[in-house]
């Protein structure tokens, strides 16, 4: 158990180092942006003097490294600065949007796995059946569909033609359906393929044959011997794809004018609102690294054989 604790601690520290490096790099990249927010805000209407004053007030006159250290120091106290565009507190802006993004992401995850695992299991057990072939072929198409276009198609079908769901924005539960589907459907394809191939592999293993020879009921074999063993790679993928979902939601949020973090990022990028961009990127980097760290740890718990491989 001690070894496990050390492993967790090492992974956590490494994760923190990765987050720090990513934010440092992105911070310096953003500093290279042509033209700064003040020029963008005031154009030529503000006097040179005033521009200089604003620069100093926002700390934009310091070199990037110093600005990064300032930012880190403030971050430690929960202060992410204020938006250049709206003068709102960045942490508050993000906190206000984050629940919407997480709601979307977790619902999409739920739909993805609740649909993909049974489909993959059935397709794997009845390999080469008609059902299996339909699943495999539709997965090929499904994973080639960009989520934003799927969103447009769903709007076209369900909002414009059938008038079943609202087109955009957030107005209660029904406005969740289309964005969740646009994120989840393309991901179902990959998860289903993985589940299917794991099931096929597990079914060929000796312990399954043994279980059959013992005369266990087929349903028991399916659940206890096949599904359980196939779930190790699938649950690892769960953690590894989580960040991809968050990334994907940026585009989908834009399609549906969803009041989440992704659309805030998109707007801030268009307006070159550095503090907001930095804040959001930090939050997403933390989420991503936490997910992959937890994924590694869960993997080592589920399958002790892999522990050595995880470390390298």
């Amino acid at each position, binding site marked *: 158990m001690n070894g496990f604790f050390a492993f967790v601690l090492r992974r956590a520290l490494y994760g923190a180092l*990765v*987050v720090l*490096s*990513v934010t440092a*790099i*992105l911070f310096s*990249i*953003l500093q*290279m*942006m*042509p033209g700064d927010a003040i020029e963008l805000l005031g154009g030529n209407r503000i006097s040179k003097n005033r521009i200089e004053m604003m620069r100093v007030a926002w700390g934009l006159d310091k070199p990037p490294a110093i600005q990064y250290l300032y930012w880190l120091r403030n971050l430690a106290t929960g202060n992410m600065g204020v938006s250049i565009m709206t003068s709102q507190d960045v942490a508050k802006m993000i906190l206000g949007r984050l629940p919407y993004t997480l709601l979307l992401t977790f619902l999409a995850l739920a739909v993805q796995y609740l649909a993909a695992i049974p489909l993959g299991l059935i397709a794997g057990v009845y390999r080469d059946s008609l059902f299996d072939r339909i699943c495999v072929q539709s997965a*090929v*198409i499904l*994973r*080639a*569909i*960009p989520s*934003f*276009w799927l969103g*447009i*198609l769903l*709007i*076209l079908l369900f909002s*414009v033609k059938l008038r079943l769901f609202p087109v955009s924005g957030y107005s209660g539960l029904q406005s969740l359906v289309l964005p969740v589907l646009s994120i989840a459907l393309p991901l179902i394809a990959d998860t289903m393929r993985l589940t299917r191939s794991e099931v096929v592999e597990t079914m060929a293993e000796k312990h399954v044959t043994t279980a059959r020879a013992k005369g266990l009921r087929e349903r028991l074999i399916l659940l206890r011997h096949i599904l359980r063993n196939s779930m190790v790679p699938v649950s690892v993928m769960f953690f590894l794809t989580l*960040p*991809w979902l*968050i*990334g*994907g939601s*940026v*585009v989908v949020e*834009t*399609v549906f004018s969803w009041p989440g973090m992704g659309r805030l*990022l*998109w707007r801030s*990028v*268009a307006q*070159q609102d550095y503090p907001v*961009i930095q804040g959001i*990127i930090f939050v*997403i*980097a933390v989420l*991503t*690294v936490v997910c*992959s760290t937890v994924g590694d740890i869960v993997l080592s718990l589920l399958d002790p054989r892999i522990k050595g491989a995880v470390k390298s």
Partner: protein
Amino acid sequence: MFKNPSFATGFAVIALVALGAALAGHATGYEFDAINMSEVLKSPSRANWLGTDQYGRDLFTRVLFGARIALRVGFIAVAIESLIGVTLGLISGYLGGYVERAILFVTDLTWAMPPVILAMAIVTVLGPSVNNVAVSIAVVSWAQFTRVVRAKTLSLKELPYIEAAESIGESGLSILVRYILPNVAPSIIVLATLSLPSAIMSTTALGFLGLGAQPPTPDWGVMLSEGISYIEDASWLSVFPGVAIVVLVVGFNFLGEGLRELIDPRIKL
């Protein structure tokens, strides 16, 4: 090669798209930016197979020109990412030690961000344009090349003929280029083909967000984002550019799967 069904399907689809892209202007008799205000938002017909957009431009022509952009960005992005990824993979696998650890740390950094978000940040700095999209996609997705090439190099460098080359005093660079790279090349080709679909999908996503090609460039993502405004009256604008994306991506997926089966079945993406 053509006996492999995945490869054959993929090849046929890509060949067709490439032909369409090559003939774009000549095949349809329109230019992609030919504005015709008397033919605005016309539904698909004999004269305009896929209809016209809000400026009366022929949608079919624009979709074909869009294939040029998608193919160009895809190839540039994958060329850059394989160049970076392969170089770092060879170096880290061959040298090992601190160099390897440093390179692996950098690959971990690129995995610490969802690619679209990282690409958004980079393209913001470089400014929105087709080529900058290619660069930013390459910057966020070279790491998988490093992973595969490093693993291959690690196993190759233990082989007797590499040892022999070392013992007669060949330099590390020459061993990498003359003995290891040719052995890794087939896997690189498979990986590059498998990377094209995601590069193309990221391109259209960035275009859709307004961070890639700018109007009137007939980028599929740009066309879709313009089309949304007319979704009630001109649904074809929201449908056909997306169909084009799916066709091209499915084509490359098949091609890549086929090459994988033929060349190196163990490669995973």
